[in-house]
């Protein structure tokens, strides 16, 4: 697949749901150490709802679709990560407006808008030990792949790898946002659970291209 349609978006969301189901307990455990432990549930519930929602929507305009799916995600799981993922959908949406198929170049633009959206919403930046530390490198990898003329599949493999590396880096960082920030230095050593969740999202995406 070289373009993402509503159909393939559904397939991707289905794969993300599967990964989240598998990794639910691991995410709960991670988030329990430095947070409230809801992350496994919110990611699984949120993506399941979005996956179910896509069938309910007649919409074929990918922009409007992304907007609606984002609002759905937020209304179902209004936790920090739920809202940030929702923000990614909502902020990416305008870049997809008027299109029924998305190419890698669209996706890069959408990703960049999402990163900017998260930075604005969270008043955070790369290096703060958040989901951004997985998301931003993933979007950069997509962009690099596009520039290198790679396929969507190759781009997503690179993006997933970038999230793995990003998660690894978060272990050396100290949390400054969210509940984990209450732990100060004690947060060093643990990966950021939001970053791990982003890694699982890209794992799901990647599986659609396998």
């Amino acid at each position, binding site marked *: 697949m070289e373009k993402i349609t509503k159909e393939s978006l559904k397939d991707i969301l289905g794969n993300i749901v599967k990964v989240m189901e598998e990794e639910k307990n691991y995410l709960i455990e991670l988030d329990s150490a430095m947070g409230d432990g809801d992350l496994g549930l919110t990611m699984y519930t949120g993506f399941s709802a979005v996956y179910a929602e896509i069938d309910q929507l007649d919409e074929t305009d990918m922009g409007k679709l992304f907007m609606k799916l984002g609002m759905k995600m937020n*209304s179902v799981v*209004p936790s*920090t990560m739920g809202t940030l993922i929702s923000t990614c959908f909502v902020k990416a949406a305008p870049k997809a407006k008027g299109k029924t198929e998305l190419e890698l170049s669209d996706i890069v633009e959408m990703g960049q808008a999402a990163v900017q959206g998260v930075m604005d*919403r*969270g008043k955070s930046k790369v290096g703060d030990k958040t989901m951004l530390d997985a998301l931003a490198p993933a979007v950069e990898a997509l962009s690099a792949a596009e520039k290198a003329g790679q396929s969507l599949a190759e781009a997503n493999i690179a993006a997933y790898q970038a999230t793995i590396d990003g998660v690894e880096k978060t272990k050396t960082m100290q949390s400054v946002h969210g*509940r984990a920030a209450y732990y100060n230095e004690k947060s060093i050593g643990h990966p950021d659970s939001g970053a791990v969740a982003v890694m699982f999202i890209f794992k799901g995406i990647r599986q659609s291209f396998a």
Partner: protein
Amino acid sequence: MKKLINKPEDFARETVEGIVLAHPESLKMVNGSFHCLVRADEKKAGKVAIATGGGSGHLPVFLGYVGYGLADGVTVGNVFASPSAEAMHEVDKAIHAGAGVLHLYGRYGGDIMNFGMAADLAEMEDIEVTEVLVTDDVASAPKGKEDKRRGVAGLVFAYKVAGAAAEKMLSLAEVTRIAQKTVDHTRTMGVALTPCIVPEAGKATFSIQEDEMEIGMGIHGEPGINRTKLQSIDDVVTEILNKIIEDLPYTSGDEVAILVNGLGGTPKEELYLAYRKAQQILTEKGIKIHRKYIGEYATSLEMAGMSISLLKLDNELKELVDAPCYSPFFEQTR
């Protein structure tokens, strides 16, 4: 998990249902959603509307502060979890009376994200929104980083004062300024003795020994600044009140409102023991208690423990804190 509840997943909804059944003359849902509650009385055209919200499990916070001279609407999340931006937006639309909406809430990650998104949604509908985050918990970030602190019982002062300001038909800018000033003049610190259990989680939010307490523990079990052996209430009050006093600082000649707040599981008797010592200390320091609140004003389900909050008053704040207010959970008549 020893609770008098039905299914854990129904806890937040059924609680709100009970509240709306009990107080239909005061509170009503928006579009039948338990997440969205607003004042049941007619809204006053041109009055600034105050919206608040946050997770369930803190009664009377948050919905108990919706009423005359208080907030106008509230968005209710699941236990200890932010409600959605969409629900906040519904409340904003329902309470907006042409003079803008103040988002007034405690500084927690999920809530900030969602109120931020709700503000974006409001902007699209040309509803002017301002925001004041309550950041009174001295234990949650050091001096110099006041804006990184969590909001706890000091919320009550913010509702009381901002609500009175709005009732006076002041402008959104003025109500916002006054709310921010209230936050800037408020400091809180608490102590926790036991955790609580979030119904859906089914287990304690943290673990603590039978002979231990934690100074500065957050209302969701966020780590505090000092875990020690259980101390006498006189020693506990001395420690937390001094931390509060030094932080602003409150000084001789100041007039304050004081709130001695129970976290849920602590008997009223103990709150009065705390007040007793607090009054002694404040009197010694020449700080005058202008008004006092003693009881359960912001809780964490059945958590045992208490907090003390001070609000430093000037003439403007004094008049507003003294104004009458009414909600089914918080009435002030004198």
